[in-house]
């Protein structure tokens, strides 16, 4: 039973974290909301007064908006599909008995620890460069014309780079989940004559459902925010301008802070909707 004194001490210990995080969240957030209702051009006159919802309407009606939504969805959807499907397969593979399991796991996980600017730059130059990249060598070896990946097939290229970075994360979480699966259950099913496929569909997959949901939610939140991969490779050209990148360009490159802030508010609302789902799952886990 906690004493009254220790309860007061506990509150004092919690206070700095809460107060600081509250400030970190509220101050910039309030500023963004205020800017979003203003015509605010730091390089061309500064604060030009209130404009109501004009920025919100203009952001959505600008010709760049829908393509940005589309490329965001394509990147997030594409990467999620690739990482979850391959992640499940890899997790099952890594869970099998084999020699050198630890080393294989290390090899598979490694890309997650590579900083985004390095992986983007290595892929862009050493693999996807149309003259000196390894893919170009490979294409020429088979007598094909090398492709300039990041301009002609920009979207698949970005999806490939980002999937490579996030596959380890999905694999690792799904592997952890698979390892908690009761192997007796699988053996019993095998004895009863269940085929590998039906064992996978009726036992493994349902067991992984929660882990898959968590992977999808967490990755979505991070994938919506990817920045360095685009900054280093295409700078948003060739149809790879995501919402995040579009807002970045409005705010810092064209210095239209009002418009960019309205976009920022949209991004915050979108992220919060997703976060709500994630927190419901995590919260349930807390009660146990």
């Amino acid at each position: 039973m906690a004493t009254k004194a220790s309860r007061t001490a506990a509150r004092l210990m919690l206070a700095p974290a809460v107060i600081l995080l509250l400030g970190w969240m509220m101050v910039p957030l309030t500023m963004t909301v205020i800017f979003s209702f203003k015509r605010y051009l730091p390089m061309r006159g500064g604060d030009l007064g209130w404009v109501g919802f004009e920025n919100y309407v203009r952001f959505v009606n600008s010709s760049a908006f829908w393509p940005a939504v589309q490329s965001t969805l394509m990147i997030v959807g594409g990467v999620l599909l690739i990482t979850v499907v391959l992640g499940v397969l890899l997790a099952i593979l890594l869970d099998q008995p084999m020699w050198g399991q630890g080393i294989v796991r290390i090899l598979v996980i490694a890309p997650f620890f590579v900083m985004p600017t390095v992986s983007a730059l290595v892929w862009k130059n050493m693999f996807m460069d149309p003259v000196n990249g390894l893919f170009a060598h490979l294409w020429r070896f088979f007598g094909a014309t090398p492709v300039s990946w990041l301009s002609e097939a920009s979207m698949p290229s970005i999806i490939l780079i980002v999937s490579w970075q996030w596959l380890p994360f999905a694999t690792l979480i799904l592997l952890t989940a698979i390892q908690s699966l009761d192997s007796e259950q699988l053996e019993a099913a095998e004895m009863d004559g269940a085929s590998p496929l039906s064992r996978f569909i009726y036992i493994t997959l349902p067991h992984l459902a929660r882990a898959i949901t968590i992977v999808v939610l967490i990755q979505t939140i991070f994938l919506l925010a990817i920045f360095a991969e685009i900054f280093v490779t295409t700078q948003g050209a060739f149809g790879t301008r995501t919402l995040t990148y579009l807002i970045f360009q409005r705010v810092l490159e064209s210095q239209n802070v009002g418009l960019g802030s309205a976009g920022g508010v949209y991004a915050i609302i979108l992220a919060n909707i997703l976060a709500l789902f994630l927190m419901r799952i995590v919260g349930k886990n807390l009660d146990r």
Partner: protein
Amino acid sequence: MARAATTQRKIINTAFAWMVGLLIFFPIMWTILTSFKTEATAIADPPVWFFFDWTLDNYRVVQERSDYSRFLWNSIIIAGGSTFLGMLIAIPAAWSMAFVPSKRTKDILLWMLSTKMLPAVGVLYPIYLIFIKFGLLDTRIGLTIVLMFINLPIMVWMLYTYFKEIPGEILEAARMDGAGLREEILYVLTPMAIPGIASTVLLNVILAWNEAFWTLNLTAAKAAPLTAFIASYSSPEGLFYAKLSAASTMAIAPILILGWFSQKQLVRGLTFGAVK
């Protein structure tokens, strides 16, 4: 009969898994190999694999020409500093929520998690303005503070899940024996909490080291860490594969090694304890 079948299966598994593992690791291996080649060998067609004159020249040139050690130092200070500052705040907070929970503990934890979900780009300009106002732009202290904030929720969460696993009976026993709050923390909790604290530090150093939104947007020449240094290679005059590889290898090597130690903690930290 059954045994032969399992051995055979094990051989197939091993071969297949190693193939996939090497394929996924290949870009990293290729970067490391290329860093030891000359620029001419680096772009040779057909590609040269292992048999070339290994050279350390690229590492020397990268260091001399771009002052690599300055960026490395910035990375170390920013990643280490933000983790250290964050832990100072997170340890007491996690401790208090794990051992003296109240009705609001769950709400506070979830709220902290929600601040992590805030998209950085949504608050880019306000942070930028605040940085200009307080002279923090392109300073290590500014970046340290920002990275401390973005990782603080993860630190609190991870520590909380570790502290939660320390059995409460031990604390009660210590109290019965007359231990005060100070003794309780010093002699009972600290030794049991150290593994969890170490894992939290490890994961947060990794996250801070690789962070590439704020480090790219809030630094220029002075405080730029390795993420920004590498990004500067994307300009055309930086297109030297061997040197790019040497710089990349140096930038990822320390974290790759740390990362391999932190596999398990990674799952717990990044899923907020939802998958263990």
